[in-house]
């Protein structure tokens, strides 16, 4: 059995691609081709460098991965949720940091403006964000408020025609690359509001976090806002309360559900092909029962992930997707991908500790993916509350 046949079988054991539309097939192929040529050969090196490879930004914009589900009038392509999912799958097959970049730009920043912004704000930002001329970040999490965003300290006080924003945000993807930050803060009445904060304003500071042992190809920052003054017209008029940022998180989590499929797929294919050529005690390790047991277990989990992603996409397409359904799939897929990548690293043996192979990079990245956009535990409680009608936070 040659490499291509083995890869295809591992990636799609139940022939789910028979269900794909032409649009989904073409989008997947286009993004895969880009990632195979432009990202994967350099991913290990970029990851070690610990910064997002900014030269990719115009290339990703040209490929069309920023805000692709938005209408053409705002620079989007009107992509279906399933095609968007496959796009995220293929990006994260390259690296979780690459998918995170696209997730934050599209699912968080652009989505926030599209859903909660005024027409003027949409016209001003969205087409240029689609072109990659403006990079956005999304400031919700704070140093002391992660899983409990209602405990945020950042305040936006009315002073005349302006809001004056003060506070700190942490673990902000793209923070020090962004030209605009979507910042969530409580107003004088204690209601959570969204603000479009140009990052060059006086009092705005973004500091890179360089100590990460995970998601190293992604730019992650701490934001400090020290009396940053913005006109009232920079407030997102349709966002009232915590529901708005949480709705954006649902979008981003949907992308993660698909992205993690890509990371798991890549780690599993790498480990399986390695097992077919690496010999121990005179035979390929793929001929060992212990290894076969692991690979079959990983393949089964990958298939679970794919089926959940696909049906979630169908619900999204049909307009009935609920956030608790997204939570269950995010919880499952991030954890399953993490465990698949860990086992792939184990199968690679000593070679598995090097970023010359992909598994350890995916594994380390997926520790972040399992944690951000709602930890495994928080999603357990969201689904638990939905199933049982009792909040247990």
């Amino acid at each position, binding site marked *: 059995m040659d490499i291509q046949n083995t890869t295809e079988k591992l990636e799609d054991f139940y022939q789910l691609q028979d269900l794909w539309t032409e649009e989904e*097939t*073409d*989008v997947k192929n*286009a993004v895969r081709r*880009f990632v195979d040529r432009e990202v994967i050969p350099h991913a290990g090196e970029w990851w070690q460098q610990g910064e997002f490879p900014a030269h990719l930004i115009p290339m990703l914009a*040209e*490929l069309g*991965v920023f805000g692709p589900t938005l209408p053409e009038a705002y620079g989007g*392509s009107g992509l279906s949720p399933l*095609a968007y999912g496959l796009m995220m799958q293929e990006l994260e097959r390259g690296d979780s940091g690459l998918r995170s970049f696209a997730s934050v730009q599209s699912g968080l920043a652009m989505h926030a403006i599209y859903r909660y912004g005024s027409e003027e704000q949409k016209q001003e930002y969205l087409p240029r964000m689609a072109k990659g001329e403006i990079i956005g970040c999304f400031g919700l999490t704070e140093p002391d408020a992660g899983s409990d965003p209602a405990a945020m300290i950042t305040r936006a006080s009315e002073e005349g025609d302006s809001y004056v924003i003060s506070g700190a945000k942490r673990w902000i993807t793209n923070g020090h690359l962004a030209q605009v930050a979507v910042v969530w803060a409580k107003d004088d009445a204690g209601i959570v509001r969204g603000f479009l904060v140009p990052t060059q304003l006086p009092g705005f500071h973004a500091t890179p976090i360089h100590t990460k042992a995970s998601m190293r190809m992604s730019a992650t920052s701490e934001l400090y806002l020290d009396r940053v003054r913005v006109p009232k017209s920079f407030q997102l008029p349709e966002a009232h309360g915590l529901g708005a940022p949480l709705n954006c998180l649902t979008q981003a989590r949907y992308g993660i559900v698909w992205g993690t499929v890509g990371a798991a797929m890549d780690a599993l294919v790498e480990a399986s092909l390695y097992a077919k050529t690496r010999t121990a005690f005179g035979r390929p390790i793929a001929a060992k029962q212990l290894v076969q047991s692991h690979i079959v277990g990983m393949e089964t989990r990958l298939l679970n992930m794919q089926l959940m992603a696909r049906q979630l996409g169908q619900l999204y397409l049909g307009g009935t997707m609920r956030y608790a359904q997204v939570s269950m799939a995010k919880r499952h897929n991030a954890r399953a991908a993490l465990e698949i990548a860990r086992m792939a690293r184990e199968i690679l043996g000593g070679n598995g500790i090097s970023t010359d192979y992909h598994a350890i990079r995916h594994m380390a990245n997926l520790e972040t993916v399992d944690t951000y956009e709602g930890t495994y535990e928080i999603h357990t409680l969201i689904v638990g509350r939905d199933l049982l009608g009792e909040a247990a936070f």
Partner: protein
Amino acid sequence: MKILVTVKQVPDTATKIQIRADGQGIQEDGIKWVINPYDEFAIEEALRIKEKQGGEVVIVALGPSRVEEAVRQSLAMGADRAVVISTDAAVDPAAAATALAAVCGEEGFDLILTGKQAVDDDSAQVGPMIAANLGLPQVTVVLKLEVDEAGHRLRAERELEGATEIVELPYPAVVTAQRGLNEPRYPTLPNIMKAKKKEVRRVSMDSLSLALDPRVTVNRLFAPPERPEPTILSGEPEETAKELVRLLHSEAKVL
């Protein structure tokens, strides 16, 4: 200017080919199909000419329904519309060129671009035969192409062994593309979505009423013979060297 690009769909070069039991062709099940890479250079060149000088790029493809995927890819790269000549029959280069030339002639054009050859059968005949069918000048294996619209002429650089040949010719003409002519662009997501709305006209090959009796028929396709098991010599270097020379002389008969 109006540019037609004839495009063939071929098995991905990474695909492992299996020969059919009847020896008349390859097993098509499970094959990943792509645009012939040389045709991609032709599409890219057509798009660049259009971007510079305006006009229209029309894809002309021939084959069974699976070629629609290659057509969609071409439209997603930026071509304006496509004509597909539908047939399930095995088509030899002469028949393909006759049918493509008929459709190109009916479409009308200033320039026909295509790959210098298809990477599946490597016959490299279809481009030149389209030119012959339409009575046009042609230039093959082109590495660089310049269009002089005012003078209605083309200037092309061709790759020769150890040399570059520069030729000029009037157009309408047929130009076949070599690797190095350009770097083909990726289909992008916006263009994939736009491609869904572009016109694809389908013409059945039978409806063209052409005499397409094959001039070349495939007798048999077979895989190269399996390599015999290698002989591995072991022992002292002095002994194995002597044995190697003996084998090369008396068995392999190369010394």
